[in-house]
């Protein structure tokens, strides 16, 4: 480490500013942000360190630090910053930077452009939406206008094929990002790469399970973020609850879709030619409930951002809007589709199906390049950070 010269990029500050670190140069390194942060600790201290890296142009230091993802953006630092340098925004901007940098080479500049240019983001979204639209226009079957025959209009296995193809690509991109992040954040740490790796295997697994339960399933750190919310009433109004509803809503729908594809026999009524499946059917019930959670969470998050009620909801970039609006649209079009289907309005059903599939397609395509990517990067970072603490204390 010591024999390697430190590389500084003078343009890094401007890059971070363009990604939303609006006032990073104002910082005079007093450390108030770190001191008031409910999540910062002795071993992993932020955000001042990250801001110093930015000011010095040490972009590798930023990408090598899992601390970036330990921040849950509560905004306490921005509230108390004596320079009004908005440290929370800088942390957010650095996460955007990291998302773009962990992505595979070609996707990396695509991701960066989405963050930096609103016009580019709009055009990309429209072009991406054209893919499923063209596929549907080209591949759809006979349009029966007398009764709803959804899967005659667009056969179910087409959806499966497109979905699987897309899923494989997205998964590949995500895995590349995770791999790169793992490599960078553990580089130079003994016990992670090379010597001593296998000896700690069981411990790693334990830490991994802990991370999964505490940070993914119940998201304890996000709950800690809002120090004032102790009672359940406050919790229900907190950022944590909003996030939990979106997360579990999304997971629920993911499970519903996968189960529907993997074990069609689990659904008691055969899924052919759009026969009506009763609402009480377990998998469908899961989908309906998850959809409700998702719509509720996304709506609340959008309202927060419109009202700018908190620091974390007062600076909204295109990708934040895109993600939330796509989530909400996915939920709303899903329910509208069901209603149209139920009232037996064939043309409306076909149109809604098209829109619904486009929205879901968009949602998955942009996932690895936008804020959505934190769903995988954050748990990995927390795990690496826990493991690092374990190494340092033993």
């Amino acid at each position, binding site marked *: 480490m010591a024999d390697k010269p430190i590389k500084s990029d003078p343009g890094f500050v401007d890059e971070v500013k363009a990604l939303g670190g609006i006032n990073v140069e104002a910082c005079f390194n007093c450390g*108030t942000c*770190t*001191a*008031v942060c409910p999540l910062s600790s002795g071993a992993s201290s932020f955000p001042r360190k990250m801001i110093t890296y930015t000011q010095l142009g040490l972009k590798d230091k930023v990408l090598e630090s899992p601390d970036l993802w330990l921040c849950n953006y509560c905004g306490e630092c921005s509230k108390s910053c004596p320079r009004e340098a908005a440290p929370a925004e800088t942390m957010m901007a650095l996460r955007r930077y990291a998302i773009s940098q962990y992505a595979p080479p070609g996707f990396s500049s695509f991701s960066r452009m989405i963050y930096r240019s609103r016009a580019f983001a709009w055009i990309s979204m429209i072009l991406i939406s054209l893919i499923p639209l063209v596929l549907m226009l080209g591949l759809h079957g006979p349009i029966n206008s007398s009764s709803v025959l959804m899967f005659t209009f667009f056969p179910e296995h087409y959806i499966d094929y497109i979905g699987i193809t897309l899923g494989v690509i997205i998964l590949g991109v995500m895995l590349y990002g995770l791999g790169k992040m793992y490599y960078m954040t553990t580089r130079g740490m003994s016990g992670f790469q090379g010597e001593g790796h296998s000896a700690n295997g069981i411990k790693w697994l334990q830490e991994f399970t802990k991370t999964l339960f505490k940070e993914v399933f119940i998201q304890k750190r996000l709950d800690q973020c809002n120090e004032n919310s102790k009672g359940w009433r406050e919790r229900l109004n907190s950022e944590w609850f909003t996030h939990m509803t979106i997360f579990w809503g999304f997971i629920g729908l993911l499970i519903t879709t996968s189960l529907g594809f993997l074990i069609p026999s689990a659904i008691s009524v055969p899924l052919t030619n759009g026969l009506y499946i009763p609402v009480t059917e377990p998998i469908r019930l899961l989908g309906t409930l998850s959809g409700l959670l998702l719509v509720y969470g996304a709506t609340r998050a959008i309202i927060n951002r419109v009202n700018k009620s908190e620091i974390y909801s007062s600076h909204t970039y295109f990708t934040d809007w895109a993600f939330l609006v796509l989530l909400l649209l996915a939920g709303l079009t899903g329910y509208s589709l069901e209603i149209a289907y139920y009232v037996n309005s064939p043309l409306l059903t076909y149109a809604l199906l098209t829109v619904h599939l486009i929205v879901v397609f968009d949602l998955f395509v942009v996932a690895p390049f936008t804020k959505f990517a934190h769903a995988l990067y954050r748990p990995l970072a927390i795990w690496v950070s826990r493991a690092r603490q374990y190494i340092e204390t033993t």
Partner: protein
Amino acid sequence: MTELPEEAYDVLVIGGGIAGMEAAIDLGDMGFKVALVEKEPTIGGKMLLLSKVFPTLDCASCISGTKTSTVSHHPNIRLLTYSEVAGIERVDSGFVARVTEKPRYVDASLCTSCGECEDACPIIVPNEFDFGLRGRKAIYIPFDTAVPKNAVLDLDNCIYCMQCERVCPADAINFLQVPKAHTLRVKAIILAVGFKLFQAEKKKDYHYGEYPNVLTSMQMDRVVAPTRPYNAVIRPSDGKEPQNVGYVLCTGSRDRTVGNPRCSQVCCMYSMKQAQLIMGSLPTADITLYYMDIRAYGKGFEEFYRQSRDMGVKFVRGKVGKIEQKPDSNLTVYYEDTEGSGGMRKADHDLMVLSVGLLPNTEVAGLFKNVKLDLDEIGWIRIMNETRSSVQTNIDGVFAAGCATGPKDIPDSVLEAGAAASQCAAYIRGASASITAHEVPAGI
């Protein structure tokens, strides 16, 4: 309200702190008639409250005490205490100021400051002199070296029991006093309105006013002064001698969240001064200064800083983020040690002192009725051209000195007061006080 006949003076000095007193004495010595208006019942300002002054550790009241008595006995100075300027109007020959003198309810010409009234008064309220660390009566002599040394009755806290009136041997108590309206016609004005202290309550994370062992630096200065309350250095919650004192520098300075982005210039030095004085009183106490940058810029300041380090004062670079109280009323501070590897830290102290910053007295701009006094973006009086004159405001014939124009230390305030006095004298004598380069006659 009693209207008094108009009086004429050469100069009106507003503010009876060290700068105002110095300017008034300088002008008085030159033969000008000066009216000095002070809103408090006594003169001396903030300097008189201090224990010692940095970096020489001279006794503050020994220096300002000579000024207060000079002012009160000077044949050319008319002193109006407990008086506030209600308005100033520009007229052809100068200015007309209306000054309201508040009633003391004590006849100053009769009062001998014997203190009998104080003893008789049953009401005790927190005093101003020690910033609430000690009590005073509703009728009180503000402090031992007060000038003028007369009792003053605080009617807001008085219960009209008339005990003071009964015991006063000089029959000086007079509940029938009403405010007096003075009209002063003057040729020039010196604004020496000083500063106000940052209200530490505004930094919510430090819990000043809520945790008993969090004090402001002005309170601490009283604690380390020879005339300290209880004659001991003790902490408020339980009277324990503090053994581990922490200082939060830049409380309310260089902080945009409270609207004061500027450095207050004196906090680093007075904090080190207090640290040295605490070490004098409590030789075994640990003292930690949490600072952002140490600004020891003046003559002898850097040496004073090094001396503090050598004496064992611990300097930690990092602004305290928050203070939490523990059940034993000790305090935990959260900060980031921004030197070295950095990182979030916690430390325990049994007394925390907030080194509060200096803020402008912006009300001064409202005194001028038919002219506008320029303030800078923070609210200090704007000096038109600092390279030409450090005391000339935007109004001809109006000068400013001391902390009225920005935070500064005592020597600089005294220096400016002298400059204001001499430029004011030149202005009155008819020479233009605003000579610009092209107006300088050829041949000079």
